[in-house]
């Protein structure tokens, strides 16, 4: 009798443990799967600068980037909206969601660009990997005709038209509202206008995004030049923007002192400054398609 009672108790205890154990078992048995941080930035660009993001799998991105004239051109020029505009049309694609390629053409300096971008390290949600790292390499081909310096044609050889930019983009999504990126950059021009100018320039860029609703954010970017191409008369690029996402579109409206849209223009050769109102209104539109 005593034993039967003991047995009964044992069975009861065991039953209870089993019911509770389903959850602890669920904790242990789930397949191992790393959680990568998503959407450190909303787009592959912030204002002018590249973000750590690459396009998703089998995604094609058609981009329109537009910069108006300077705000200090006054009311006659409707603060730059009337003219002096620069536009870049671009087509970019990623097959696997890690490597992307793109090309575009910027009206300013008739600049053709092509680039590769590879997401090397992905930040994880558990902070085991605290940052995402993306490598960026780009080449530019200046298609302007009849450029002369001291009556000598500047582009006497085809390779003189080429320049290159490389960046290591390191970003962290610190929380769901704030993302920060630091990106050392290196630029090389095959030819520069004057012998005193440097063919190779380098520096570091910093960008940040403050997301204030699920679909809207305020963005900042700053490009610091450590070694300059031309010592005097140029400025660091600085921009403030607002971005809104609507389904497959991302709209970015911003104010920046850079007229150029690609790296070999805005990182090194920004000739307007914020201090005299030489800033421009601009916008980027990104439309993605899944192919």
């Amino acid at each position: 009798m005593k034993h039967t009672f003991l047995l009964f108790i044992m069975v009861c205890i065991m039953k209870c443990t089993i019911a509770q154990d389903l959850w602890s078992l669920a904790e242990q048995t789930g397949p191992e799967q790393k959680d990568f941080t998503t959407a450190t930035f909303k787009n592959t660009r912030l204002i002018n600068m590249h973000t750590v993001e690459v396009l998703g799998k089998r995604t094609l991105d058609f981009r329109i980037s537009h910069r108006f004239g300077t705000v200090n051109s006054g009311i006659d020029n409707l603060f730059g909206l009337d003219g002096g505009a620069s536009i870049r049309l671009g087509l970019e694609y990623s097959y696997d969601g890690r490597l992307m390629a793109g090309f575009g053409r910027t009206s300013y300096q008739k600049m053709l660009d092509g680039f590769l971008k590879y997401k090397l390290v992905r930040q994880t949600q558990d902070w085991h990997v605290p940052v995402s790292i993306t490598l960026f390499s780009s080449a530019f081909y200046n298609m302007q005709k009849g450029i002369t310096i001291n009556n000598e044609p500047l582009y006497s050889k085809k390779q003189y038209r080429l320049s290159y930019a490389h960046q290591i983009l390191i970003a962290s999504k610190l929380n769901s509202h704030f993302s920060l990126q630091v990106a050392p950059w290196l630029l090389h021009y095959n030819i520069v206008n004057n012998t005193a100018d440097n063919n190779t320039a380098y520096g570091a860029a910093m960008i940040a995004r403050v997301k204030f609703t699920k679909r809207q954010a305020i963005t900042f970017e700053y490009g610091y030049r450590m070694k300059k191409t031309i010592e005097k008369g140029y400025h660091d690029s600085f921009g403030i923007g607002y971005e809104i996402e609507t389904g497959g579109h991302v709209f970015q409206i911003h104010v920046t002192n850079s007229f150029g849209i690609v790296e070999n223009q805005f990182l090194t050769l920004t000739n307007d400054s914020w201090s005299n109102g030489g800033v421009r209104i601009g916008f980027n539109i990104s439309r993605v398609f899944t192919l």
Partner: protein
Amino acid sequence: MKKFALLISLTTLIFQSQAQVFIAKKCQIDFFSAAPLEDIKAINKYTTPLLNTLTGAIVFKVKISSFEFESALMQEHFNENYMESEKFPYSLFDGKIIGDIDYKKDGTYQVTANGKLTLHGVTKEVTVPGVITVKGNEIMINAKTPLTIKEYDIKVPSLYVKNIAETVDVTIDATLIPYIKKD
């Protein structure tokens, strides 16, 4: 001798109780939204539901970020804008299967599962009809249930009401085998 008999019966019980827990060998959870402008589909293959055949207890722990969409952007929006998967990484179902099932006999049984479903941080009592098929050592679970997303505090901006259905269908297709503890 009596003690020995007790030991034997206890040992048998322990073995029995282990065989009562079934774990998914494979499980697929589909999500389908049919709206005027577009259909949205997603698949989650990374869930391992557990079933206790003795008590009928069944648990699901579904990782939201494991849903795979055809479009990478849709997946991002699903996680970022709607499910907020960084804040609510898992959806849980803690329920009990109601119905006459003989897990020792092959056959198909119409059942319902009653329990608590937690989604997007909101917990609701739900009843899900389903089919359980017993075949040898395996238990197959098939269930389909509509979920009204508003009930789980998931907001769809008026701009996208034609893109995202108010009620989405969730389909579960799982095959369970006896759980053997690994040391």
